[in-house]
């Protein structure tokens, strides 16, 4: 028995030193390729002018903190979820509420619109992700058609339909992400690797294939192969929880927002962080990020109630937007890039253009 334990200790020790060696080699190789900074490459790019972006619509109706929102592909409808347990579908042009459902739990931290526009998914402290078909029949009770799809062992922090209404990707406080079949509720793939709660995820633009990125309380951003369940790339440069991740429109990079008060850009082909968006005066965490259509602008919502607009290439802030009266918790640019919507702990959502 003693010899077995000794053998195991030797194996563990040799594996540890192999890991150290590999890490050292990786860092050396990566350093060789780090020949320039992104903002240096962008030095001769014309600077951006003044931006006039204002709140064009305010969506009022939630009784408590807005935690999440998503746009419908029709570029006008929005679904939002709140700490009060309500999920509301809005027409952002008219600000009318089209649907509302009360979840059996409070803190509905995640919601998503189905690609067809015919259903929404949501979940939170109930540890589940449920799908509700949207019906315009006034006699139909939306809650009656509810379908429980995902089951985690801790809160649901994020959810997203894949390219169709048939599959949903979820992220959870249980440290995992998972891919589910909506019809059967079957678990198709699970993604293990985060060392703590997973707080966010984003699917790669469909042209770039079957991957997604997730961010967590372990300060790591991880890129996953959806078919194999394998982590293909991992990035650990943030100094605190990563609250939001979003792919750059080309699919070759992604941005992250963190409690360390910075947003960062990671290039997937260079396999490293290539930009950091921060200022000494910004000391509150960034809760949500999204790119404008061309990828030149990065919109980031912060816990100090503001939205900062960053020049992605030059690394400088181009605008600061005031309006919310509490933390900005969620932010998404509309599908056609004409506006972006922010949700806040002040109970409202604002559409900016």
């Amino acid at each position, binding site marked *: 028995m003693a010899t077995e*334990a000794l053998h*195991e*200790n030797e194996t*563990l020790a040799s*594996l*540890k030193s*192999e*890991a150290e060696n*590999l890490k050292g*080699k*990786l860092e050396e*190789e*990566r350093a060789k*390729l*780090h*020949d*320039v*900074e*992104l903002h*240096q*490459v*962008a030095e001769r*790019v014309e600077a*951006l002018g003044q*931006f*006039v972006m204002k709140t*064009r*619509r305010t969506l009022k109706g939630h009784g408590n903190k807005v935690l999440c929102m998503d746009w419908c592909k029709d570029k*006008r409808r929005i679904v939002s979820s709140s700490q009060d347990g309500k999920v509301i579908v809005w027409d*952002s*042009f008219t600000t009318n509420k089209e649907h509302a459902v009360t979840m059996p739990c409070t803190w509905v931290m995640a919601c998503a619109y189905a690609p067809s526009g015919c259903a929404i998914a949501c979940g939170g402290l109930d540890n589940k992700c449920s799908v509700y078909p949207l019906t315009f029949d006034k006699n139909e009770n939306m809650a009656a058609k509810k379908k429980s799809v995902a089951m985690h062992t801790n809160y649901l922090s994020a959810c997203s339909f894949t390219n169709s209404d048939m599959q949903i990707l979820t992220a959870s406080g249980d440290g995992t992400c998972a891919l589910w079949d909506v019809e059967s509720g079957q678990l198709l793939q699970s993604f293990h*690797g985060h060392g703590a709660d997973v707080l966010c995820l984003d699917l790669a633009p469909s042209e770039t294939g079957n991957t997604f990125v997730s961010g967590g309380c372990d300060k790591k951003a991880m890129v996953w192969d959806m078919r194999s369940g*394998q982590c*293909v*790339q*991992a990035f650990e440069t943030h100094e605190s929880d990563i609250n939001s991740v979003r792919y*750059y*429109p*080309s699919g*070759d*990079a992604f941005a992250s927002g963190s409690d360390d008060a910075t947003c960062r850009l990671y*290039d997937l*082909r*260079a*396999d490293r962080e*290539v930009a950091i968006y921060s200022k000494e005066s910004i000391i509150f965490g960034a809760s949500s990020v999204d790119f*404008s*259509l*061309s*990828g*030149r*602008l990065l919109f980031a919502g912060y816990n100090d109630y503001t939205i900062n607009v960053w020049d*992605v*290439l030059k690394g400088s802030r181009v605008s600061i937007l005031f309006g919310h009266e509490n933390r900005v918790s969620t932010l998404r640019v509309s599908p*056609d*890039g*004409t*506006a*972006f919507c922010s949700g806040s702990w002040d109970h409202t959502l604002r559409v900016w*253009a």
Partner: protein
Amino acid sequence: MSGSSSVAAMKKVVQQLQLEAGFNCVKVSQAAADLKQFCLQNAQHDPLLTGASSSTNPFRPQKVCSFL
């Protein structure tokens, strides 16, 4: 036994690192140039960047029409 599970965990770490080591990276200068290129090529189609006029942005105040 806790010993064997830490060996198994360590094996996974080594496997992951080997996977990452086999990754063909591009130089930052090349990657950055491509990001810049994408931005510039798509700039004119980015309404929030160009500040698209009221007539094309459904959220901006519409000019009032009068019927003659």
